[in-house]
């Protein structure tokens, strides 16, 4: 029995973790998502402490730690603060590579919104360029109700 290791072949156990989740968007998030779904409007909220307008909205400002209860409608156009073109694929990506992400500071907002960039030649993307939200035709109350942002 001492030589058991000589004949053993290391095995791999293939498995998965598949626990289904249903994440609550909460009152604040639901208001944001239904605004897009029902009216194609993008709403954020303003912190009474620092005056920042958050999009997507937050219930409490992380910097000032006070509730942000003033709702503000922001533009569906904004400035591309950063972007990347992704050349690899994985199962969570909603579309095939190459795909592009951007950080978009909407006019009237302070924080930038993370989203996809589309309807353009990715080679033309530049930091600082104007982009606009393209809304999905079928909207179901998720962040994908904005299909992506496209250069204006």
């Amino acid at each position, binding site marked *: 029995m*001492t030589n058991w290791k000589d004949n053993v072949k290391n095995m*791999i*156990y293939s*498995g998965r973790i598949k*626990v289904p989740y249903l994440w609550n968007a909460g009152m604040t998030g639901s208001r944001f998502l239904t605004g897009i779904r029902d009216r194609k409007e993008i709403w954020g909220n303003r912190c009474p402490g620092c005056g920042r307008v958050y999009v997507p909205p937050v219930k409490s400002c992380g910097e000032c730690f006070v509730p942000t209860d003033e709702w503000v409608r922001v533009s569906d156009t904004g400035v591309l603060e950063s972007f990347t073109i992704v050349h690899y694929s994985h199962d969570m990506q909603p579309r095939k590579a190459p795909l592009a992400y951007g950080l978009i500071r909407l006019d009237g907002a302070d924080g930038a919104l993370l989203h996809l960039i589309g309807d353009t030649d990715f080679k033309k993307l530049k930091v600082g360029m104007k982009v606009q939200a393209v809304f999905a035709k079928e909207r179901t109350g998720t962040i994908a109700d904005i299909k992506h942002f496209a250069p204006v």
Partner: protein
Amino acid sequence: MNEKKREDVELLSISSGETSQPFQWSVGKHGSYFLQQLRDNKKIVGIRCPKCKRVYVPPRPVCGQCYVAMDEMVPLSDEGTIYVCTIVQFGFVDPSTGVQRPVPYTWAFVKLDGADTCLTHFLDSVDPEKVKVGARVKAVFEERRTGNLMDIKHFAVL
């Protein structure tokens, strides 16, 4: 719009849908040897600590109590005793498949003859009169074995 009443907001939830995380877990050489013995020879093995002499099943690399590496595989009987067991009657999602696991089933800690720890497994019966602490059981092997703990189909109550 600006001052919509709270109750006017439809509360949304976002579903994870069909997403899952695949894993390729290493079984390690100790566990692999156990599974290979199960698959190829219908044999169950444990591992003995060189210091305290406890026999652990399934085999693993380290005796936690003595903090020494273990190396000595020992054959175990395919018969043993029910240390503890219960009949699972409630439904739940199996995290490996994402769907409900069939119930009822009996889940037992089986202390195989020659081992000091228990193997956790299914029993062949859900009859409360049969599946009792102290009852004798014997491993029933699958015909087609793939190198998996489920190569033992279940333990049959003798």
